[in-house]
């Protein structure tokens, strides 16, 4: 099984450590993983802004670059969801790579069926950020709107980590208000959503907020750093942010 690692643009530029953790984790689990260098972006920022027609070439490039792999794995639920569900509509044909693109949580949980992560240790209380596209497009957890048996793949994986205590905020999968261009076009609604979300995460008593999307974490972290409110965790320190994959790779 050959896996292509997709490190989306903003993870590449802002959170390379998330990409590194993903690579190391996959390697340690015996996966034959490669990083094709000519990758850039999934195209979501343009689609979100109303210009998916400007991403046609990008989508074709993505398909060309990744179609030979058995799976394409990304440490970013929203980008993975965009590739899988939107790419075929943008270019009006089936995309081989899109169908095989997964978020790393899905891949570990459903494909590798990981039941142990040797060495992973994170002796902290974390609040789980169930990001919208992870929940409602990829099905990383059961959407609270639906009357279906409850599950949470992210939580399942995190619970394999020694010493961790995983909490979920009240309104477990309400949007944090990032939404890409939404945060710029509707800055006030977006910020209010984020501040409400932060308050609920902090109320769990967590020291860290963790999730499968660095974009949501970036939004909330930006709000915290701006300092328009008090975002001290119950541990007495400013609330911290960490991607799920960094916790899972903590022993590497």
């Amino acid at each position: 099984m050959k896996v292509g690692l997709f490190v989306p643009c903003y993870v590449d530029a802002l959170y390379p450590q998330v990409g590194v953790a993903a690579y190391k984790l996959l390697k340690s689990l015996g996966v034959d993983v490669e990083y094709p260098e000519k990758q850039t972006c999934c195209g979501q920022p343009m689609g979100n802004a109303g210009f998916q027609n400007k991403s046609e070439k990008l989508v074709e490039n993505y398909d060309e670059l990744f179609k030979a792999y058995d799976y394409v794995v990304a440490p970013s639920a929203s980008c993975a969801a965009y590739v899988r569900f939107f790419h075929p509509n943008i270019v009006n044909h089936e995309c081989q790579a899109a169908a095989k693109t997964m978020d790393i949580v899905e891949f570990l949980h459903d494909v590798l069926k990981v039941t142990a992560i040797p060495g992973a240790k994170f002796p902290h209380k974390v609040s789980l950020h169930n990001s919208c596209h992870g929940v409602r497009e990829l099905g990383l957890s059961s959407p609270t709107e639906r009357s279906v048996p409850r599950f949470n793949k992210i939580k399942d994986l995190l619970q394999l980590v020694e010493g961790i205590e995983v909490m979920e905020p009240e309104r477990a999968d309400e949007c944090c208000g990032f939404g890409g261009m939404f945060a710029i076009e509707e800055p006030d609604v977006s910020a209010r959503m984020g501040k409400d979300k932060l308050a609920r995460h902090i109320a769990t008593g967590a020291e860290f907020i963790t999730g499968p999307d660095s974009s949501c974490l970036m939004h909330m972290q930006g709000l915290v750093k701006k300092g328009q409110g008090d975002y001290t965790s119950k541990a007495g320190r400013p609330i911290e942010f960490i991607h799920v994959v960094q916790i899972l790779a903590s022993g590497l």
Partner: protein
Amino acid sequence: MSTKHAIQAEKFLQNPDKVARHDQTFWSVRAKRDVLAYQLEEWEQLRESASQIKKHTVTHLADYLDQFEANATKNGAIVHWAKDADEYNEIVMEIMRKHNVKKVVKGKSMLTEECHLNENLFKNGIDVVETDLGERILQLMNLPPSHIIMPAIHITREQVKENFAEKGLLEKNGAQGAWSMGVADKTELEAKADPTYLTRCARYHLRDNFMEAECGMTGANFGVASTGEIVVCTNEGNADMSTSIPKLHIASIGLEKIIPNYDAMGVFQRLLARHGTGQATTVYTSHFKKPRPDGEFHIILVDNGRSSILSNEDHWQTLKCMRCGACMNTCPVYRRSMGYSYTYFIPGPIGVNLGMLKNKDANYHNCSACSLCCSCDNVCPVKVDLSTQIYKWRQELDSFGHADPMKKAMSQGMKVMFENPGLYTTALKFAPLANHMPSFLTDIKLNAWCKHHTMPEFAKESFHSLWKKGKVK
């Protein structure tokens, strides 16, 4: 460039406590809905059935409309067809003139709102009294609804009291209201804006109007084709009061509200109130089939753009909507921006879509009011693909000339950069320099991100660069 929605939302958000109350009120309705949803094992099957029935009905609409008309006529109702709002208002006026109507008591109906019925009646010298409590409060305050099910939820009881005082309700009906609660002196009740007292005042005020009106008007939640009857769901019994005293009943119903039969009715009745208000059922589910003795029962079937939506491949699913309001209650943007921030009278996810179908130039402003969280898609009882439709509208804005120039320029920039891996890696290399830009350069007014956020910091070395140097092991 900010949309009208963003500008109005900013104003609403200036009062954080008010926002918190608005958000929590609607979230609690969503939470009540969830409790009921989790209790029903067949919940998701019900949603799927409802979606399929609606799809079937709207794709066989002409047949069901014919069937409905034939059965309603057989029952003794008089059925009218209105192609648009003007024709609808003319039909109403014709009936009113024939019966020399001076006053109408009216149940809640978003269709009449859509067709501007009240303004039209007033213009023609006919007094209209809304009989749903929330709608009546708003009518007295001369305000539009801010939500389709709980239209006056943004109004406080103090505001209601002040308005009732101003409009003479407290003076006229206060003593009776207090008496009905076993209280001799209404002063204290008024001082604390007692909600029960205010409701009683409204009740007696409305009862006077029920007695005086020559015509009762209702909307309809459903029109049952197999029986030719209309079904109206209320919590206050006001549709029944409106139709029990006047001999003349005019019901207004959108074409898409027709359902095939009682079996279908059973599915929708189980879903409507659970979704809308978190109740297992509305307090009153009233079936109107024939005129009262010596009375007349008119049913006006209104198109007003619906048949053209049916032929719209991307947006026909809006016709499945039964106006329960669940998408508003769950929408994190609606809850924090309030109905008046939207340019269309129906707010929230369904309103964004219906507004665009009605008038793109007036309502494109609402397309920004969505973070694409997809929660609405998952609550909708008839599975309208609400967020997908909003995404599609955004793709079309440029062709209507309403794309945001900044977003267009940014997307063009991204296109160039992301299509060219070489350019992209060069940009990555220089990106960290942006970290050293002084914040007065980045926190400029044009950069809306910096209104509430600090700029994210670029890593010293991107993943690309780390990989190239063999540092990723």
